[in-house]
């Protein structure tokens, strides 16, 4: 079964870039949203294998979404990859502390993103 991914980023170009990278890597992008509230709704609706969340989004931030997802035991299986344009280890540490599975800094290489997705989702990739 193809691993399913929800993408949340307020920048449409980045969303498309992530989608293309994920699809090329063989994953199924089930939802693309542009803000935090929509991200929570999409995660609840699709219960994806992985939610790829931008840290800085209108409304709820990626970290707040991450915290909310981790607070719901029904979503325990959802792995979370945070994307952030912020620099520094403090930013990464706060993301991981909120329950993110992995953290990727912008700008990122589509190749590296695909490699990270494969590493996180393992044999779920088709």
């Amino acid at each position, binding site marked *: 079964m193809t691993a399913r991914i929800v993408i949340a980023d307020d920048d449409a170009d980045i969303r498309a870039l992530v989608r293309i990278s994920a699809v090329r890597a063989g994953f199924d992008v089930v939802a693309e949203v542009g803000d935090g509230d929509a991200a929570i709704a999409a995660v609840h609706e699709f219960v994806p294998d992985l939610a790829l969340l931008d840290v800085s989004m209108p409304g709820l931030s990626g970290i707040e979404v991450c915290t909310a997802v981790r607070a719901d035991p029904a979503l325990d299986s959802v792995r979370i990859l945070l994307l952030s344009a912020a620099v520094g280890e403090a930013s990464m540490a706060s993301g991981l502390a909120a329950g993110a599975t992995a953290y990727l800094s912008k700008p990122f290489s*589509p*190749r590296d993103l695909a490699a990270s997705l494969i590493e996180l989702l393992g044999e779920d990739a088709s």
Partner: protein
Amino acid sequence: MRGLLERIRHILTVDHPSPALKQSPTPIALIISLILIWTVPDLVITDGSWAIVGIGLVTIATVLSALFTWRSRYSGWAIVIPVIDFIGIGAFRAGTGGTASIFSAMIILPVVWVAAEKGRGYIALAGVGVAIALMLPYIFGVAQITDAGDLIRGFFSPVIFVFAAVIINELARQSRSQLASIRSLADEKERMLQRTFEYASQLEESESRYRAADRLFRGVWAAVTEQSVIGTDVTGLIDAWNPGATKMFGLTWRQAEGKRYVFDFHVPEELEVRARELNYPPGQTVLNPGFSALVETARLGDAESREWTYVRDDGSTFPVSLSVTKRTNEDGQTAGYLFVAADITQEREVSRLKDEFVGLISHELRTPLSSILGYLELMKDDDEHPLSDEQMQYLGVAERNAHRLLRLVGDLLFTAQVESGKFPLDSREVELETIVRAAVESARPGASAAGITLVEELPARSPVTHGDPVRLGQAFDNLISNALKFTPRGGTVTVSLTETEKDAVITVTDTGMGIAESELDQLFARFFRASTATRNAVPGVGLGLTITKAIVTAHHGEMDVQSEEGVGTQFSVILPLASVAISPS
């Protein structure tokens, strides 16, 4: 006119009698004698020639006395005046009866003058003068010694006059001595008076300066309205409270001085934490042990400046930058402390806004760069629609410049972090050889493409320092990349790592265009670009060395640069060694 009066005063001065004053009795006596001769029938001039000679000589002596008085530089010759008087009076005596002349007594006048001069020799001169005056009639044959009485008179009278001269000389000596004493006392009195005037003048000046300083101090004290200045005794009891403190806390000096303690305005927990940090230093007050922590550094003689939180009586708080210094008394003993504080609420807000701005810029610049770089990579990796070599070359240029822009954004953000003091270091013990080797290896392709020989001189045993490997790698990358940029094709860049007793030394030496000596001290300033860089169109914005220096400084290291235009440049990074060195794995 004033000069004339001064001369007249000089002539008439009694304690320093002038020749004219000393001579004046003689012509007066002569005039009286002439009047007597003219008016008294029994008195007659017996020899007109001698009388005229006598009058003439006294007149000459009088004229000379006036001349010597007027021209004081001739006063040393004034003694000739009484000598002339002796001869003149002797001649007048010879012309008015010789030994029988009633005017013989006039001889006493030059005797007094001569005998009063300083020195025993003048007694002899007076005696000789008297003898000449009395014997003149006999010497020139005007009179004859007829009996023993004449002979005795010729010797006896001079002896009497000599006795008188001795007495006068001694009295004059005593008078001079007394006068000298009086003058000495007068001089001393004058000096003391002068000194008193000087002291009074100095006192007046000091008082004036003190008043000016007092006015200045009061002016400054009143003018400091944006900083609180609080003075306390050794227990922390407030004894000085400036208008700035009034503005800061809303309390007047009357409400604070002598009534409140400085630690009343601190957060007790902060004082407690500081006291714990200092292992509860011994204090001068038992009212609040935290006060000892507050003044500990100042108590030991150093000024201390750190951030604290002040508390107003209504419970509101605000951050301050507080400097504490010691006050001493006249004996140098600690008399209390001075607390000068500035409210830094606004600075904190500016810092927060700056952080926000940095975060915003970080996001807003890096997000579009993510898209640019990501889509460029997608195009290059599109196996279904492969690009031509030319198209790949164009994309390579775009990608290289996007990376350049990304590095610039990274450098700007890093510089902002350094400036705001939020420069995170993930420090651990690191082998410098590994970091330097990695930096050299990552630069090797670039060096090869530029036709530059990159040489590494690394030790078998790696020096170990305590530091952040990522940041140190960034610093070495910057130095090597700079050296490559400034070295022409065919040149050499040498990277070496050595160890001294306490430090590890990393040097990056190039055979490039060098830097002008006048620019070396500006090299680490933000956005500074050496003239050789701009002249040779070497790309860059002037942040690399600023960042490198910041990293080295954060590692308690130092940087050094030596350069010669047209010959090359050597940058050295000196980092303190960790306590032990381990062999490279």
